[in-house]
């Protein structure tokens, strides 16, 4: 490893009262790679995500972003640091146009003084181009974002994050409510994104969606990391088995499941 | 793209909505679309500050309409939904734009209505004022006012009360700030003071009759030596009657009390007939509507308008004539 990972999570724990949601979790996320975070409900994926997106603070442990220690006090700060978390429904205002959604909070202005204004024509074409770069083609970025399908909306949120210079992209169960065709669109977007200088964390409980796009797989159970393997150390069937909780039979790499 | 047919039809349906003729508040109407009839039948509009559903104003409207029927004039009645000078001013503006042959208005607030009235006069429409505005109609350029000079009416009521032995009266005002009503109380005070008595004003809000009743009870209990109560309208009379009855029943009031009111209504007249109330001051609203149309008729025809205040009151309804008046109220003409 010639340089710092984009995100370094070191021995991070989180307790809520007497419940230990995360227990000394460590993992690395590299830029240009898709790290899949897998596990069943209650495994601690959501908690880790919320810590990364600034909703919770960790009880113990350290997080470093590009080598610098990260202390987040709010989601807004997480965003300012370049960490974008894309949830399923909340990211896009359906009644606003695509370009308005794209530029929300970072609207480019032209002109001077009190007459500084938006440039809808330019904004529309930039938004459309950025979406096309991720494989989503739309006719007109003036149309309401609600006319986009679920997968396209998430792609819009991703495109927005990239445009703002995101460093880390966290996708929380992006395929959970999508149909087959939309899932394909989204996974293609994720593949495009992985070409950029961005670290991607894909949170999912579906190994069949994770395997085609992931470079690196981390499985959580009951707040602990039980599997941490690169793609070439796994196959899709093995991943499914591991997630189903079958004991590690023979197999190279990764920490053994502690009993 | 075609607009979905039902929606478009709906809108056109609204547009084609039946002639509003049936809904108009007038008599002797020809079809509005017939412009020749329009030119022949003069149109007089009354714009007042009280809704035509209000029993008092419905008598005014009846008087106006009956005069219209007798003289072959189309009469309309417009009023805002509540006592609202902004709305009334807008109504006057719209009525003036519709170019009536004559206009009769009440003037509860000369300041507020001045611009609208002056604009109406500038448009060349003959105008008379009715009911309120005896003090200001001249300043606004009008020559005739038909109504009851409020202060004088209050004075007369005060004198009558003094003659009945009242030394201190409560004036229950349900619209403080309405100049006409304020004047009534002032007149009452003058009338009593002349006989060595006094009066005080109690403000009530008739939107809540329960509350009004409590206020009257409270005032009667609180203030020393009140032996007369005057309310300024039938809507105020009812709570006052109830308050007095309740106090008498509970023993909170054992001294004689003269109860009187301005203007008529069935409960008021019953109370007078039974003796619970001594008298009512009647401004004869029928005449206000009727005479307004009569005057405007001649103003339209030959340009002649009398000068000054034509007094339609005070007329007094007492135990003597209550029965007769009740009969006429049943006909809607008093």
């Amino acid at each position, binding site marked *: 490893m010639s340089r710092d990972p984009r995100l370094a999570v070191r021995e991070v724990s989180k307790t809520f009262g007497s419940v230990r949601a995360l227990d000394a979790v460590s993992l690395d996320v590299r830029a240009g790679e898709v790290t899949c975070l897998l596990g069943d409900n209650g495994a601690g994926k959501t908690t880790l995500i919320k810590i990364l997106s600034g909703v919770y603070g960790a009880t113990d442990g350290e997080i470093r972003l590009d080598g610098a220690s990260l202390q987040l006090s709010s989601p807004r700060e997480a*965003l*300012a640091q370049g960490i974008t978390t894309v949830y399923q429904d909340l*990211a896009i*205002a*359906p*009644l*606003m146009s695509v370009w*308005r959604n794209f530029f*929300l*909070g970072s609207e480019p*202005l032209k002109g001077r003084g009190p007459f*500084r*204004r*938006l440039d*809808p024509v330019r904004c529309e074409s930039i938004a*459309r181009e950025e979406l*096309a770069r991720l494989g989503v083609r739309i*006719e*007109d970025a*003036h*149309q309401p974002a609600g006319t986009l399908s679920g997968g396209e909306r998430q792609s819009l949120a991703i495109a927005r994050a990239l445009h703002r210079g995101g460093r880390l992209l966290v996708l929380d169960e992006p395929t959970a409510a999508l149909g087959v065709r939309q899932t394909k669109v989204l996974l293609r977007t994720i593949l495009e994104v992985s070409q950029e200088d961005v670290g991607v964390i894909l949170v999912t409980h579906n190994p069949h969606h994770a395997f085609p796009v992931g470079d690196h797989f981390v499985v959580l159970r009951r707040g602990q990391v039980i599997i941490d393997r690169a793609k070439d150390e796994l196959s899709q069937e093995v991943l499914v088995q591991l997630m189903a909780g079958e004991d590690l039979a023979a197999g190279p790499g990764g920490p053994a499941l502690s009993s | *793209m075609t*607009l*979905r047919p039902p*929606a478009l039809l*709906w*809108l056109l349906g*609204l*547009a084609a*909505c039946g002639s*509003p003729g049936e*809904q*108009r508040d007038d008599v002797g109407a020809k079809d*509005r679309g017939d412009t020749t009839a329009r030119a022949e039948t003069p*149109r007089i509009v009354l714009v007042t500050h009280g*809704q*035509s*559903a209000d029993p008092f104003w419905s008598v005014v409207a009846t008087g106006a309409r009956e005069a219209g029927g007798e003289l072959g004039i189309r009469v309309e*009645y*417009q*009023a805002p*939904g*509540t006592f609202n*000078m*902004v709305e009334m*001013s807008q*109504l006057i*503006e*719209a*009525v*003036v*734009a*519709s170019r009536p042959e004559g206009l009769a208005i009440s003037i509860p*607030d000369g*300041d*507020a209505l001045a611009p609208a009235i002056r604009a109406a006069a500038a*448009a060349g429409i003959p105008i008379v004022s009715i009911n309120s505005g005896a003090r200001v109609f001249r300043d606004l350029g009008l020559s005739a006012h038909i109504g009851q000079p409020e202060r004088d009416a209050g004075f007369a009521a005060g004198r009558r009360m003094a003659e009945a032995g009242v030394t201190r009266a409560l004036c229950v005002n349900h619209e*403080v*700030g*309405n100049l006409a009503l304020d004047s009534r109380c002032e007149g009452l005070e003058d009338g009593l003071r002349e006989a060595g008595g006094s009066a005080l004003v109690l403000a009530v809000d008739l939107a809540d009759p329960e509350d009004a009743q409590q206020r009257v009870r409270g005032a009667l209990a609180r203030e020393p030596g009140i032996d007369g109560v005057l309310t300024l309208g039938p809507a105020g009379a009812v709570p006052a009657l109830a308050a007095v009855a309740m106090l008498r029943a509970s023993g909170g009031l054992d001294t004689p009390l003269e109860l009187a009111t301005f203007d008529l209504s069935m409960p008021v007249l019953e109370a007078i007939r039974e003796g619970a109330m001594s008298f009512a001051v009647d401004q004869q609203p029928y005449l206000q509507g009727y005479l307004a149309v009569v005057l405007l008729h001649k103003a339209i025809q030959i340009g002649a308008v009398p000068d000054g205040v034509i007094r339609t009151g005070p007329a007094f309804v007492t135990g003597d004539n209550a029965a007769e008046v009740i009969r006429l109220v049943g006909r809607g003409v008093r």
Partner: protein
Amino acid sequence: METEPAAARSPRARRLLARPELAAALGAAVLWIFFTIQAGEPFLSRAGTAAYLNAAAPLGILAVAVSLLMIGGEFDLSVGSIIGASGMSVMLLTTHFGWPLWPALAATVGLCLSIGYLNGIIVVRTGLPSFIVTLGMLFTVRGLTIAISRGLSGRTQLGGLDGSTGYESARFLFASSPLPPFRISVIWWIGLTVAATWALNRTRYGNWIFGSGGQAETARNLGVPVNRVKIGLFMGTAVAASLVGIIQAVQFNGADTLRGTLQEFWAITAVVIGGTLLKGGYGSAVGAALGALIFGLVRQGIVMIGVNADWFQVALGTLLIAAVLFNNQVRRLVEQRR
């Protein structure tokens, strides 16, 4: 690589039909035709046109500000009471305390801005629905207006503003008729509509308003100062109400404590007729202006054709439902393509 897709209907045309103001514009046109047919020449005359424009203007000023707030996702039920407070504030400061008119106007605007600020800060800090917060403010402001007026002057209606210094210049700015019989309030209305539309569609702040109404949490995370935006919008509705109160006090040479009653209700009606959604995030200031125009047309139109003014509420209610239904159908039609 981008190629321009050939659409069955041009996106521009579709966009035009999807505009929120469409229903209101058509409604206003239909009503105008209706009244022209029914009332004839008097309706078309200058006096007739002025009658409905002058009547629409105060509501229009209010509705434009309320539309921005509703697009931003909040309601303000206190604007009517602020109109009343504004008028009485001007009257009390001048006739009771003897202030010259312009300082009284400035203090009144300041007072109303504080009420708006209070509305905003309570809503963003407590997270309570603005419907409830401003409803409480409605009663508080109206009650205080009545109580303070009676307490200081013994009256609920005050007149004689023309006696104060500065009245002439104020009259010129707020109550004159530079092009008689059209009042200057119509110019205020049009000017504010233009400014609001420009702010909404062409500035960053406008995008923030849409975002705060459409998806506040996300907007906040993206760096939009949602709380500040909302507080600003509440102050906007308050200052608009203050302006209406001032215009009416100067025009009618006085004020009363009940002025402005129910105006919040009419304002919301006009805004909804104009295509703004109750849930926020979508709407138009021009639509609200058209909604106010419809209000004026109906109100004055039915008087001009001789119908009892009672029918005004029936007419407006019917129109409201028709406008919303029509708006809905068009929008669905436009989005159906997907």
